[in-house]
């Protein structure tokens, strides 16, 4: 077996050259909270690990024109400590901060959570609901894509060889808009989502929804953007009729599996319940803006 090599390049071109030039498997290292577990178990056997954390801009959060640029390898702990981001996108932050323990938060990153490509990834539904984009760099240059275009199946992404995510962009929040993320787990902490739900809404001055994104996790091979659920919200206040339509739309969008965490029927039911509860939190937050 070839020996594992490690590189921590200081420039983006060097990182791309290393990743695209590897003859065998090359893995990108951000926080390592998934990669090191996979290395140890033998599930992945790379010949090269490229640690991206020395690259300029890949760690840290910047406010730009009222929006946010989050470095791809920024830790969950750093995201949770950023007052401006917590105020503007509480749902993105609460989803991110649900990943693992305090120790895992010290390292785990948005790019890692996304590119590990688990259907149950806690940061991803709220990021998609927030209309976040990912800036990808690679041998053919730089491109910016919606976050929902990255995961294509469990453990699989749309990134080409040599490509990696440099940063995420969150747009400037509209007036009277906010977001929320909830997941169901059978305990209070340290578990993987049975179902996750991210909701981002914009209201008018009377509390009527003018824009919405509803995204479910862990109910299909990838996160699901539920357009019908957003349609159920837009043009309405969050009354019982709207909640019932939202619930039905969320359930209809599910295509889950049965596993040790939950059955198909349970996941579908919970998706509707979580959509209601998450929307209620997002509406309350947006109304308070």
């Amino acid at each position, binding site marked *: 077996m070839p020996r594992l090599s*490690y590189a921590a390049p200081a420039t983006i071109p060097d990182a791309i050259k290393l990743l695209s030039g590897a003859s065998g498997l090359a893995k990108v290292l951000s926080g390592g909270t998934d990669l090191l577990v996979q290395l140890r178990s033998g599930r992945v056997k790379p010949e090269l690990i490229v640690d991206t954390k020395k690259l300029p801009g890949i760690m840290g959060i910047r406010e730009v024109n009222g929006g946010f640029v989050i470095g791809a390898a920024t830790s969950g702990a750093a995201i949770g400590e950023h007052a401006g981001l917590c105020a503007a996108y509480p749902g993105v932050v609460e989803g991110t901060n649900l990943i693992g323990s305090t120790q*895992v938060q010290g390292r785990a990153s948005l790019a890692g959570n996304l590119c590990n490509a688990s259907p149950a990834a806690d940061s991803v539904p709220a990021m998609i609901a927030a209309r976040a984009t990912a800036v990808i760099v690679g041998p053919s240059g730089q491109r910016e894509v919606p976050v929902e275009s990255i995961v294509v199946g469990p453990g699989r992404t749309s990134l080409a060889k040599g490509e990696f995510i440099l940063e995420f962009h969150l747009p400037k929040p509209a007036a009277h808009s906010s977001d929320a993320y909830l997941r169901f787990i059978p305990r209070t902490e*340290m578990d993987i989502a049975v179902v996750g739900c991210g909701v981002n809404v914009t209201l008018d001055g009377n509390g009527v929804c003018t824009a919405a994104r509803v995204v479910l996790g862990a109910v299909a091979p990838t996160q699901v953007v539920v357009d019908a659920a957003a349609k159920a919200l837009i043009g309405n206040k969050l009354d019982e009729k709207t909640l019932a339509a939202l619930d039905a739309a969320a359930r209809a969008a599910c295509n889950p599996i049965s596993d040790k965490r939950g059955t198909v029927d349970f996941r579908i039911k919970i998706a509707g319940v979580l959509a209601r509860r998450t929307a209620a939190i997002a509406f309350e937050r947006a109304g308070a803006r």
Partner: protein
Amino acid sequence: MSKIHVTTTVNGEPTEYLCEAQDSLLDVLRDTLKLTGSKEGCGSGDCGACSITLDGRLVCSCLVLGVEAEGKSIGTIEGVAKGDTLHPIQQKFLEHAALQCGFCTPGLIVAAKALLDSNPNPTETEARFWLAGNLCRCTGYDKIIRAVMDAAAEMRGAAA
């Protein structure tokens, strides 16, 4: 066979070591630097027995590569006491009998210290959530939480 040379700081002391790319920082601490206070429980970031601080941030050393410590500052359980004087958290663990087999204790003390360094006055709920990544199969956690809360109170008194 060329190993990678790493220059770092461990508990305030400049330190150098050689390691392979795949060696975890926990392996380096225990096997190369002979700092065996940090324990390996699960090796997958679930149990917290290997908790250390890396540039002040609480992490599992089993989920860090040894090579990643280049230029960083590492804090381990060995750096918590000052000579023969126990840290208040260590003292309170003894007073409250917050350990039985002791395997989880170094990680819990490092994690509790990181909590109290950033939040000197946590609620019990905050302490329990912060320490949720440190598993203990003996105590049932109650005595651990009492020790941490008591240490926090004592440290606030000492700081006042």
